[in-house]
């Protein structure tokens, strides 16, 4: 089976200044790569590079066998909590329906299948309970569930999730873990940036970043006390 994401000697950053260099990894269908690190460690920059929003600074990377940012309908990207969420008057179900726009393009009309996928995505995240309410009136956790439903509605083969558990309580974090497990079960490769070590429990690969790769491997081999101390400056409780 061909790799969903393949990176060799990849350098990511902005302008001509790399933040992290020498990234090497390969992600097969159904695999989960968890990126852990402090703010500014390069997690979001790596995700943006994989999404095609930021150009690679060096090395090579391909997503679904092509350059990043070229297969829009097959790659779903969840940005960090958008600021607009607090002012957007649009209904939750309309925000979730935007997840289908990559498939619909400018002019294609949404069909019954598109409406069904939007409905299912809201049911899976629990956003269905407040589907008619405006996004701005919801709590941070409810807004995050709405954005998660939107990225699920893409029905992508690769999911790039930037801190999907931010603003969620324990139940919400468990729900995200379940959603990720369901997506992996249908062959979706997932890359997830997070601050929560517990999010890495079921990962196939963990990458500890601190403007360089501190450790990389299975959760057991990467999340050692020494590596965590080097990454965060102290040891986090598992």
């Amino acid at each position, binding site marked *: 089976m061909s790799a969903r994401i393949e990176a060799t000697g990849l350098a990511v950053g902005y302008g001509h200044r790399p933040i992290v260099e020498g990234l090497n990894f390969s992600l097969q269908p159904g695999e989960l790569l968890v990126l852990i690190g402090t703010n500014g460690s390069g997690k979001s920059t790596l995700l*943006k590079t994989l*999404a*095609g*929003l930021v150009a690679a600074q060096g090395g090579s990377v391909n997503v679904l066998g092509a350059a990043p*940012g070229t297969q*829009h*309908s097959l*790659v*779903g*990207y969840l*940005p960090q909590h*958008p600021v*607009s*969420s607090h*002012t*957007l*008057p*649009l*209904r939750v179900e*309309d*925000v979730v329906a*935007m997840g289908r*726009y*990559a498939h*619909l*393009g*400018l*002019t294609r009309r949404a069909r019954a299948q598109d409406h069904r996928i939007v409905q299912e995505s809201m049911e899976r995240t629990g956003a269905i309970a407040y589907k*008619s309410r*405006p996004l701005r009136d919801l709590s941070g956790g409810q807004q995050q569930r709405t954005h998660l439903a*939107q990225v699920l509605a893409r029905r992508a083969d690769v999911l790039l999730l930037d801190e999907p558990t931010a603003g969620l309580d324990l139940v919400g974090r468990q729900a995200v873990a379940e959603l990720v497990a369901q997506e992996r079960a249908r062959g979706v490769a997932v890359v997830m940036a997070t601050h929560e070590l517990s999010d890495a429990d079921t990962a196939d690969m963990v990458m500890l970043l601190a403007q360089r790769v501190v450790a990389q491997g299975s959760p057991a081999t990467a999340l050692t006390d020494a590596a965590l101390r080097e990454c965060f400056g102290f040891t986090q409780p598992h």
Partner: protein
Amino acid sequence: MGNFLFGPFADNEFLRQSLYAGILVSAICAVAGTFVVLRGLAFAGDALAHGVVPGVAAALLFGFSGVLGAAIGAGVMMSGVSVVTRRYRLSGDTAIGLLFVGMLALGVIIQSRSSSFAGDLTNILFGEVLGVSNSDLMWQFIALVAVCVVAWFCRRPFLLLSVDDGLTETSGFSVKKYHNIMLAMVALTVVASFQTVGTLLVLGLLIAPAATGALFARRIGIMMVVAAVVGIFSTYVGLLVSYHANVAAGASIVFCSVLVFTACAVVVEVQRWQAHRKDIHHDHDQPHVHGHVHVS
């Protein structure tokens, strides 16, 4: 009473023309303004409104079409903001602020060469709603059709832009391209509207009715309809007040639209307060519904 409300429009051709122009401008501003409010482009809209001043001033001085001058001014403004933002890595706000005052100052300098400096400048800034011609109405109708067509075809990228740039780009729509199309749509709105309400006040019709729509509407189409209704109502009341009280027409229209927003905001606030009170009473009457434990 009927004569007070409708008489001025029945008796005066120029006032009817102004009303038609106001209706067209309200409809254009409702469509463009909805996306301006959703995307948070009010400052850029203001800058575009002022960016047309030197173009119109030059048109008056050298005797070519004011609409053409306004279009050139808006084009220069948009290009300037884009160049300053990209080349010098300054924030959009800084670039807009810089071009905004620069273009306004240039407009005043050009206009100061005119023999009727004060009168012409007042017309540019505050509009000449009572001097609308048939050709003005025709141009405004064409602009309305163009804005509606652009908004319809670009509704998906425009909606995505109102959520997140990254989401827009990863959905297959170029942020740069559609942001510029949105700005061009706002520029067209400003060019089509400035003769009616002036460059200084066009932002009022662009923002206030759309913001009122955002208070109530949950869907983009309804938001536009509410904005159009508020704009048309403000135009009618503004013209009526202007006629009876002998005050500036353009300013009356815009002030009325801001008053409508304020009144609606108060209504929304009262509704929220009532809903909050209802929740408190509900909790008090049924203390265990949400799992609360009351110890007496």
